């Protein structure tokens, strides 16, 4: 293998001063600054760029209306919503969050009513679990129930701060259920209601 590098390396032009000579002729300050600059680029700038480039995207705050918001991971996409609902999708699953409305009793009682309506309209063979209660990250009451239909799984949540109530419904094909159910649970758990005046 042959290249122009070898002859050119040793061939000095009589009319042009090599770069090193020109730098040395200037007291090498330019060269010293160049060395320092390149070292700083590698030791400081590149790691900073990498940190920004590889940092996970900040969680997205999704306003569902009435001052209520949820924290959505980037895996959720916001679909076109209408009728005051917020619709998020992920892996073939759809999470619909209704606008907040005044609370109508405990979250379990509300969920029981919803489940009864649901079962009445669901295909034969559908079954619902008993409501399971939990607290959101903000400390508000929440409950969830899962309705298993022959072709799909539906999960509903009711979250209430005592004054306002929010209903969220996840519909997912069986294949996407495990993953999306956990993600939806995390999203609902992040729900924050507006601060009420003391």
């Amino acid at each position, binding site marked *: 293998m042959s290249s122009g590098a070898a002859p050119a*390396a040793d061939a000095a032009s009589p009319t042009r001063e090599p770069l*090193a000579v020109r730098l040395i002729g200037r007291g090498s300050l330019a060269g010293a600054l160049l060395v320092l600059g390149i070292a700083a680029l590698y030791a400081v700038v590149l790691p900073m760029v990498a940190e920004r480039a590889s940092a996970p995207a900040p969680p997205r705050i999704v306003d569902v209306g009435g001052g209520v918001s949820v924290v959505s991971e980037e895996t959720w996409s916001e679909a076109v919503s209408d009728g005051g609902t917020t619709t998020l999708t992920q892996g073939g699953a759809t999470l619909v969050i209704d606008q907040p409305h005044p609370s109508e009793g405990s979250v379990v009682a509300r969920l029981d009513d919803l489940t009864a309506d649901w079962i009445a309209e669901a295909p034969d063979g559908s079954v619902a679990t008993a409501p399971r209660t939990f607290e959101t990250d903000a400390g508000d009451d929440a409950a969830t129930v899962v309705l298993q239909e022959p072709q799909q799984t539906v999960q509903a949540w009711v979250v209430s701060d005592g004054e306002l109530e929010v209903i969220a419904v996840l519909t997912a094909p069986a294949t996407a259920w495990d993953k999306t159910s956990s993600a939806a649970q995390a999203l609902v758990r992040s729900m924050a209601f507006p601060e009420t005046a003391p």
Partner: protein
Amino acid sequence: MSIVRHPVTWVYAVLLVIGVIGLVPLLIAAFEGSPAGFLLGVVLWTLFTVLAWWAIRRFSRTRPRPRLATLAAFAWGAIIATGLGRWATGGVGDIAGAVIPDEGWAGAIAAGVSEEPLKLLGVFALSLFAATRMRSALDFVYYGAFVGLGFMVVESLLYAAQGAQTGDSPMTIVVEYVILRGILAALWSHPTFTALAAIGLAVLVRSGASAVRRWLAFLGMLVLAMALHALFDSPVLESNMMVAFFAKGAIVLAVFLAFYLPLRRRAAREAAPLSEETQEPASASS
């Protein structure tokens, strides 16, 4: 200008301190992981360094080169490049990992892209000292080899100590590392990569060719060194590690010799009539 008043001396000193700051925690962690393995590694890699040092000086004895500059080249690779590499390689690795889906290739490319310029920067810094007498491309190859040697020894010491922490027989692991990464890989490891890239640097800073040619030669050789480094670290042929080791190593060595041997023949031709008329002093000044 005296060395002490030279601006590059001060930059070198600053970078040396930063390199120590970056390197010492790694050395301490390696020592704490396996004190006996680490100490054995220090002894064996020191012996390897002495042998490699002698071999490179012996092979490059056609021209005397200052010992202090040689030591500075070795220290750049051993302390500055490895110390700065702690941050640089991690950063480039994160970027490569975000862009390249294959983890093995991402790591290999990150190592080549981050380590080769850092080592070559040391050769460039030394070229700014008139006392280093870097006039021909062979001078750049010489200092490049010593920068690479320093890097290779310290990096391998850290790898060996890490390996010693995880195995049942740390002493055996350290010895295996010296044989594999030192003795067997000596001809196609960091000294070869840096020496290859240094040929392009010689064209850039010493040649009187046009700016386009000089920059093309410099960037071409740097990219070639990065590519060979990445190839050597890559998962290519990973199903048989020994075949991969020697096959990829042979490619690295062949490419280096393709550039190096013509330079050496040319230098020998030019030196032949001169040596008969004006004998250069045999002793190396420091």
